[in-house]
C-alpha cells in the first residue's frame, strides 16, 4: 500500500483552489494539506489535516521560505499550483510576477527540494492559438499563441506554461501542466462569464463558433487525478459542455445581438469603462470567430479524466 500524499495547494483563496482543498480533505489517499492563499484562508474548512499559510507568491524569497520552511516540515510531496491572476484589466510587472515568476520560482526551488517530487500546474486553454486554418479540435501539440500583440493576460499564461514545459524531464521533478478549458463560474477569471453577465450579449454577425466550458468541480477532479498519477506532460482538460456561442448565450438566459465585428471592441471598451466589467472583446475576438474545442483524449487515456459535471445553465 502506498503512503498517503502530503499536498500543497496554491491559490487557496480562489474558487478552484478552495474546491480542490475540500476534495483533497475528502480523499483518503491524502494526509496533510498545506493551503497557500494570497491573503487569507478564513473561508477554508477547519480540519486537523489542513494547514493554512497565506503567502504572496510574487516574491521568490517568500516562495523559498514557504517551500523550505512549512512545506519541508510537513513533508509535502506534491505541489498543486492553481494560482492565476484573474483580472484581465490589471497589467504590469506586479501581475507578471504573480503569474510567471511564481511558477518559475516554484519549479526552480522544487527541483532541489528534499521532499517535493511532483508539481501540477493549472494552465489555461487561452495559451492556444485560434485561427481559421488550424483544427477545431485542439490537441496538446496545437500551436501556442505567441503573438507579441497579445495582451499580458495571455502572454503571462503562455510564458508560465512554456516555462514549465521546457523543464520537463530536466530533473527528477515530475511536472504536469493541465491546460484547462474556460471555467464558467464567478471568481475564476472567466472572460466568458463576465461577457454573459450582461442581459444583452453582443456578438459578431454571421459567426457562431463552437466553445467548450469547464466547471470548478471538473477542474478540481482533473487536478486531483494529476496529483495522484505518476506520468508527466501536458494534458488538455475540457469540460462537459461543447456548444455554439449563441446556444451558450441562450442557455444563460441572455439575448444575443449580432453586430458588425468592428463595433464590438469599442462597445465592450465602453461597457468596461462604465460598469467596470472585465471582459475585453479584443482579447477574445478570435474565439468569437473561430471554433476551438479542447481534445481531452490524452487526459482520458492517461489520467482517466472524463468531464462529468456539466454547467448548470440558468435558463436550462
Amino acid at each position, binding site marked *: 500500500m502506498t503512503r498517503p500524499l502530503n499536498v500543497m495547494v496554491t491559490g487557496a483563496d480562489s474558487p478552484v483552489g478552495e474546491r480542490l482543498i475540500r476534495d483533497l480533505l475528502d480523499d483518503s489517499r491524502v494526509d496533510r494539506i498545506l493551503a497557500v492563499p494570497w491573503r487569507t484562508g478564513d473561508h477554508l474548512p477547519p480540519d486537523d489535516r489542513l494547514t493554512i499559510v497565506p503567502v504572496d507568491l510574487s516574491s521568490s524569497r517568500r516562495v523559498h521560505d514557504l517551500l523550505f520552511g512549512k512545506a519541508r516540515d510537513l513533508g509535502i510531496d506534491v505541489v498543486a499550483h492553481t494560482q492565476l491572476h484573474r483580472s484581465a484589466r490589471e497589467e504590469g510587472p506586479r501581475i507578471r510576477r504573480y503569474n510567471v515568476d511564481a511558477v518559475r520560482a516554484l519549479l526552480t526551488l522544487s527541483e532541489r527540494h528534499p521532499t517535493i517530487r511532483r508539481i501540477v500546474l493549472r494552465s489555461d486553454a487561452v495559451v492556444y492559438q485560434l485561427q*481559421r*486554418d*488550424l*483544427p*477545431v*479540435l485542439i*490537441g496538446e501539440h*496545437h500551436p501556442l499563441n505567441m503573438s507579441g500583440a497579445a495582451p499580458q493576460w495571455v502572454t503571462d499564461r503562455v510564458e508560465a506554461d512554456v516555462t514549465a514545459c521546457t523543464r520537463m524531464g530536466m530533473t527528477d521533478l515530475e511536472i504536469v501542466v493541465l491546460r484547462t478549458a474556460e471555467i464558467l463560474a464567478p471568481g475564476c477569471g472567466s472572460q466568458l462569464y463576465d461577457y454573459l453577465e450582461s442581459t444583452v450579449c453582443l456578438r*459578431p*454577425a*454571421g*459567426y*457562431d*463558433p*463552437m466553445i467548450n466550458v469547464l466547471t470548478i468541480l471538473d477542474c478540481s477532479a482533473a487536478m486531483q487525478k494529476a496529483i495522484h498519477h505518476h506520468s508527466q506532460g501536458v494534458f488538455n482538460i475540457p469540460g*462537459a*459542455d*461543447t*456548444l*455554439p456561442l*449563441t*446556444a451558450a448565450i*441562450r*442557455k444563460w438566459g441572455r439575448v444575443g445581438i*449580432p453586430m458588425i465585428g468592428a463595433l464590438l471592441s469599442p462597445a465592450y471598451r465602453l461597457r468596461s469603462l462604465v460598469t467596470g466589467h472585465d471582459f475585453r472583446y479584443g482579447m477574445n475576438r478570435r474565439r468569437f*470567430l*473561430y*471554433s476551438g*474545442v479542447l*481534445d481531452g483524449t490524452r487526459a482520458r487515456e492517461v489520467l482517466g479524466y472524463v468531464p462529468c459535471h*456539466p454547467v448548470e445553465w440558468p435558463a436550462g
Partner: protein
Amino acid sequence: MPFPPAVARAIARTWLDDAELERLSALHFQDAGHGYDAFGMHPDFVAMATVLVKGLYERYFRVISSGHEHIPQHGPGILVANHSGNIPIDGMMMWYDVLTHTSPPRVPRAVADHFVPALPIVGTLFARGGMVGGSRGNARALLESGELLMIFPEGTPAILKPFKDRYKLHPFRQGHAELAIRHRCPVVPCGVVGAEEQLPQLTTSRLLGKPFGVPAVPIPVVPVPLPVRYHLLWGPPIPLHEEHSPEEADDPDIVKAAAARVQQAVHELVQRGLKQRKGIFR
C-alpha cells in the same frame, strides 16, 4: 446561427414527410453534449439543409447517380471527386446523394478550404451541415471517429477554372492519399459531370474577393446557375490502406503515386459520364 435548432427542426418537419424524418432521425452523429458535435454539426440543421438541397437535387439539377453501392455504409472513408462550377453545388449534390444512399444515413464531412469556415453566415451554415475546415487535425479527428470525409483534391483553383478548361482535372493534392494510408480507410472516387457547365464565368476578380476573405470571386455569364443535369458516378473503393502500411504514409513517392492513382480513377469516371450523357441539360 441566427435561429435555434428548434426553428431548423420546424422547417424540416414542415417540408419533409414522416418517412424521411424517421430516416434522418437515425443519422450517424457524435453528440458532444448539447446536440452539436465538436465541429458544430447539428442533426436538425442537417434535416433543414436536406429540405433546401432536395429540391435542387431532384427538380433543378435532376441528378442521376450510379455506383453508390461503393459508398461505405459504416466506418471511416474518403470520398474524392473533381471540383468545378464556381460555387460548390457539386459538393451539395454529393452531400445529399450520400445522405440518401446510406443506411443509417451518413453525413459526408466536406473538407473545405481554410477560408470557407471563416466566411460569415456561410461558414456557420455549412458547419451545421457537417463541413469542416481543411486542416490535417480536423481530418485526423474525424477519420479516427469513423466519419466519412468528402475531399476535392484539386482545391479552390479548380472550382474557379474558366469554361474552356472544363473537365480538365487540375493536379491533385496528396493529403487524401496520405490520410487514407495513415488512417486505414478506403478512398472512393467520384466523377461529377454537369457542374462544369452550371455557371460559365466571364472572369474572376481577386479584388472583389479580398473583402470577403476569399481568393477570388467568379463573375459569371448568367446570374443564376443553369439547370444542367448532374451525373454522379461512384467508382469502386481504392484500397490504398490494404496495399500500404501506415508507415508508408510518410513516403513521398508512395503518397504521390497513390494520389495519381486516385486522380486517374476520377478522370476515368468523368470521361465515362461525359460519354454516357446525352446533353448538358439531359
